[in-house]
């Protein structure tokens, strides 16, 4: 009997004290606000709302804009690490949605597009949060346009990250030469996968079911 109790206790301890792997999700969304892409920002709001509805307690979510220099905390529009209690989570979600609505109303076009800086910022944020699943959403046409002086020729460590490009619109030049568009996508995919990341593209925003 004593042995049985001992075995049961050990089993319980093993079950309770096992390697605690985080099961939460961290999402960082980058929104391109450069040039004419600002017109697409309403779609970004929809995606944010959808993402908010999918996230649960202890998950983390942040939304940042891509502008001239995106590797900055100042570009983070809204961020939240959701509480453990469902009521608090709902409150946080509503607050987050309000902040995003305000941002959408007041967003102004940026002269340059620093996607790599935003990516670095996202990686830093998500690594700091230490979430189990890390997802970076890039709402952009993926056309990077850096201001002189900005060095972004860096390999971003993306091991364990899933990078999803959303609403990658075709530019006028892409229509003239589709190879440019395809090349751009390929270049980004190569960049992400080179450092261990997983790459996906979703252009049909009606089919967001598999987003998270």
């Amino acid at each position, binding site marked *: 009997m004593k042995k049985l109790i001992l075995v049961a206790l050990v089993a319980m301890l093993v079950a*309770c004290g096992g390697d605690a792997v985080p099961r939460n999700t961290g999402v960082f969304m980058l929104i391109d606000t450069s040039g004419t892409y600002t017109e697409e920002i309403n779609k970004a709001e929809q995606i944010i*709302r959808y993402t908010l*509805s999918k996230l649960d*307690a202890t998950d983390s979510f942040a939304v940042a804009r891509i502008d001239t220099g995106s590797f900055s905390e100042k570009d983070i529009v809204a961020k939240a690490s959701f509480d*453990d209690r*469902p*009521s608090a989570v*709902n409150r946080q*979600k509503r607050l987050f949605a309000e902040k995003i609505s305000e941002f959408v109303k007041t967003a102004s076009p940026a002269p340059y597009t620093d996607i790599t800086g935003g990516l670095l910022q996202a990686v830093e944020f998500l690594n700091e949060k230490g979430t189990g699943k890390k997802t970076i959403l890039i709402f952009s046409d993926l056309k990077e346009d850096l201001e002189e002086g900005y060095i972004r020729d860096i390999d971003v460590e993306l091991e364990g990250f899933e990078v999803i490009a959303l609403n990658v619109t075709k530019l006028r030049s892409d229509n003239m030469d589709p190879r440019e568009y395809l090349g751009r996508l390929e270049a980004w995919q190569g960049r992400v996968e080179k450092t261990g990341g997983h790459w996906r593209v979703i252009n049909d925003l009606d089919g967001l079911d598999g987003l998270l």
Partner: protein
Amino acid sequence: MSFMLGITPWPAVSALLWIVLIIAPLYLVRGTAHKTIHAAAHGLHRSFRIASKAVSRSEKNLALRNRDVLLAAGREAKERIIEREFDRINETVRKDLANYSSLHRALSESIDSIEKDHQQAVDVPPDPPGWVKAVEAVAKMSAAEDRNSVGNILGDIHRSLNKAHKEAMSAYHAASGKRHQLLRRMRPGWRQIQQTLTKVGKSVDSLLSRSVTIDRHMQEYEDIVHGQDRAVSVLSSSSLVNFFVSAFVLCIAIGGATINFSLIARPMAEMVGGTSLIGNFRTADIAALVIILVEISMGLFLMESLRITRLFPVIGALPDKTRVRMIWITFSILFLLAGVEAGLAYMREVLLHDELATSALLRGDGGATATAQYMWITTAAQMGMGFILPFALTFVAIPLETFVHSLRTVVGLFAISLMRTLALALRLFGNVFLYLGVLFKQVYDIPLFVPLWLEERMNRAAETDGLMTRARQ
């Protein structure tokens, strides 16, 4: 095959050679092979028979034990029933016959009163008429006496007679009236006596019917004590019925507990967090489950303290004062937990509304919460369920006790039938191996039919020779 047929230039010869080469050693070792097959078959047959007998013995032991368990359970149940019947008789005697002295006094008083009234109502004979003496006096008068005076006297008598008759009639009417009045006064007394006697009669009838029931139970109890087969059969069938009925009720209770769980698991996340895990299970779910299990335990203790169930003899054996305290303590805990559940059910509804509102906001659908004005109905229903279900789950103790008690017998019966089947299968296998041994021997002999036939012929010839030699001698 080509190799086998190629050992000589002629395949037929090769085949023949092979047949001879194979059959010859088979024929030579035939005796040993038969013995081996026989030994193996008989060995297996015996082993299986022994195993079958062992299982049969165990089955019989188990059946005996099961019978004992069944009789013990039946005896205990019957004792409880008889005890309860005696309690009821005691209650009847205490309630109805305890005031027998007062009933007796009431009856005596009623009878005395009636007797008194009756005596007063006795018909008083009327006084003899006074004119008889007057007639005698007139008859004694001589003829010489004045006839006129006789006429006067008779006239007076007539008047007196009329007057006396009137007085007597009025006295008679008054007396009759008084008697009727007295008789009328006796009626409530009779009614009271009748009612009292009916009451006593009912009590006696109830006692008689109880005594008949007790007689029947006592007869059954005696049958159980004597271990009669009829009693065992009745107990066995009732045990099976109890098992299935209690299992059915327990399934319903599990359904109730599941609903209860779903009511409180969600809001429990507000208290212990929605994402923390113990093992592979959410802490909130475990906490909700623990609350329900604590409620069921409290229900069990309450039922035990009320002596409705007897799962824990320690509780039943407690002094009455402690037991009553325990009833109040368990009931209070149960009441508090029911209150907590009602609160959690309310919280669940609030959370649900909150979540719906947030979802609607995120979907950009502002009108989704328009139906909230009717939501109080579901909130009230959930709260009611949250409060009632813990008390309803209390009654799980009754089917649980029946289930536990009948489970022993049912498991025993199941094990007996299993062992019986196993014994039969083992015996069957033993016989199968025995006949397989015979079959293998026959199969072994099939390719050897030529040498065996020759052997038989030779034996027969030798026998014939022997007989002829003996005949000649």
